[in-house]
């Protein structure tokens, strides 16, 4: 009797376990679908013709797939007076993002190396001040920065935007590298010093080569920030130097008459593709790099 009820109990609890598992997965799938909905709508809308959008259902699949909206968005949509699509602005963004990411990452690595491995009097204060830079709302710095750019003679230029992004990226890049390098035993630097290596030699030959995980994290972070930036882009650019985010805004907001939703959606996806691409390529290193603690010597 006792045995029987026991096995029954086990069977029951197993059944309820499976039911619970199903419930869990269904909920997760439901949330995933909900989360993917906007992307789905964007993609389907960008593949529909204007007629179909006007007459059809928002979440229906396109009856007839057409890439017209994409080519319009890329090369002939109007951003105000000009009608060149997002293409020139896309290249502006590339020209801004790549040097800005490279420079801010390299400088952040050097800063982190100094703050973590070449402890000097006041190193902690300087590091705290740099951290403070991470939390300054960017609206606050718009006016002083505009003045600075003017004095430097690079206002409204692509180098000017690179400069701005490097400056405001340094807080985060320094933080990333400092936290990575602080876990590396100080004896490594000491050994290299005894071996005769100097400040830059130790950085190039010993610290940079072991920084790959944190470089990936920093590059993804910085690229996403800079590529998606709108505020600096709109404030510190002029006609020929606007980044893609600003162009996207202009396409969506400056059209008159019929709203071309399919073009807007295509332009938005084009503007988001590079960051998406970076995540897909390097995403797993991102998670690994964020959780990686110490380096085994």
């Amino acid at each position: 009797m006792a045995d029987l009820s026991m096995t029954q109990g086990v069977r029951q609890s197993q059944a309820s376990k499976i039911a619970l598992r199903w419930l869990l997965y269904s909920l997760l799938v439901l949330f995933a679908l909900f989360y993917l909905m906007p992307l789905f709508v964007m993609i389907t809308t960008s593949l529909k013709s204007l007629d179909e959008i006007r007459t059809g259902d928002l979440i229906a699949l396109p009856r007839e797939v057409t890439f017209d909206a994409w080519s319009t968005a890329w090369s002939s949509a109007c951003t105000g007076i000009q009608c060149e699509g997002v293409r020139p602005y896309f290249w502006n963004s590339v020209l801004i993002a790549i040097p800005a990411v490279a420079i801010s990452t390299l400088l952040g690595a050097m800063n982190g190396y100094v703050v973590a491995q070449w402890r000097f009097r006041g190193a902690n204060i300087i590091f705290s001040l740099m951290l403070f830079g991470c939390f300054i709302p960017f609206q606050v710095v718009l006016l002083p920065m505009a003045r600075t750019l003017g004095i430097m003679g690079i206002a409204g230029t692509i180098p000017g935007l690179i400069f701005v992004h490097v400056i405001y990226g340094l807080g985060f890049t320094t933080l990333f590298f400092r936290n990575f390098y602080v876990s590396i035993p100080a004896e490594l630097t000491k050994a290299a010093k005894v071996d005769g290596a100097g400040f830059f030699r130790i950085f190039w030959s010993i610290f940079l080569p072991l920084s790959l995980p944190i470089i990936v994290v920093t590059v993804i972070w910085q690229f996403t920030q800079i590529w998606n930036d709108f505020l600096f882009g709109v404030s510190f650019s002029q006609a020929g130097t606007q980044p893609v985010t600003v162009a996207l805004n202009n396409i969506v907001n400056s059209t008159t008459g019929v709203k071309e939703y399919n073009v807007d959606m295509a332009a938005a996806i084009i503007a988001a593709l590079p960051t998406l691409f970076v995540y897909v390529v390097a995403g797993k290193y991102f998670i690994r790099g964020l959780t990686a603690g110490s380096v085994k010597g």
Partner: protein
Amino acid sequence: MSPILEINNLYKNYGSTEILKDINVSIEPGDFLVLVGPSGCGKSTLLNCIAGLEPITSGSLKIGGQDMTHVSPKDRDIAMVFQSYALYPTMSVAKNITFGMKVRGVDQATQERKLAQVAQQLQIEPLLNRRPGQLSGGQRQRVAMGRALVRDPKLFLFDEPLSNLDAKLRVEMRTEIKALHHNLGASMVYVTHDQIEAMTLATKIVVMKGGVIQQIGSPSEIYNRPANLFVADFMGSPAMNLIPAKVRKNGAGTHIEITRKDGVPIVLTDTKTENLPEDVILGVRPEDIADPAVRIGGHAQEAECLIDMVEPAGADTFAVMQLGGKHVTARLHAETTARPGQLQKLAFDLGKVSYFAPDTGLRLN
């Protein structure tokens, strides 16, 4: 010959905290100097000062007769082996060993010749293309030594190089370092907290505590004539017995009286004492309290003691008892008849006895 390393009146402060106080050490070429002391005694800081990795607050430091007080580490002609080995993680073993030469612009042929020589000497030839992460602790240790050896410096510095190894490997590497010192005839400064390592390796020991040198001497001086209670207690395993005792002058000899919890005091006679105060602390090594049968020399005096505990340790058996209110350890032979709770006749040999002042802790004889 002029000393290879000479430290005069060295002080090191961090802010207002004094880490090292008035350090004076000098060693001759070929010496193996061991800095030993409990953790936090400043021995590693002193080594870092010698290497030039820590600036010194005042005093002077000479290596090979040249003033190196303000010279950067790379120009001091030293090589250092670290506790964590500090191998460059992204470089192969060969690159690790030749890095120093590469930085200094030594030509490729010389680099390869020296690498081959050191690899052969340390038997690490099969490892040359591996990364440090693929090596065991002992192998990493060898590579770290190789990196130092290849430089052929005036002075080798070792910062607790064996403390990350397991017990067996540690003893093996200890022997190897000793052999290396013997074969190279090189001058070495070695930091450890392990007093056995200090005794076995050193030609000269510096015992430190709280940033102050307690005693400098050969291993046998340190062991047999400790300068104060700290050194007496720190060096030797099991530690020296430090027993409070009363001194009673009695004609030719002096009576040393040790009280016991119950029963009559033990009275020992020492003929070589002069000017001892009434209260002393008697320092006797465990091996100087032995079975009467194995006593040596004319100083041995027998006394019956109540044994509290018996600890067999293979080659020896240690018997623990209460004398003068302290635990006292005697080193008896393995087949001793001593049993816990029983009286045992023991021979006290005062030939190498130490007397310390209870208040200052300083040696009296």
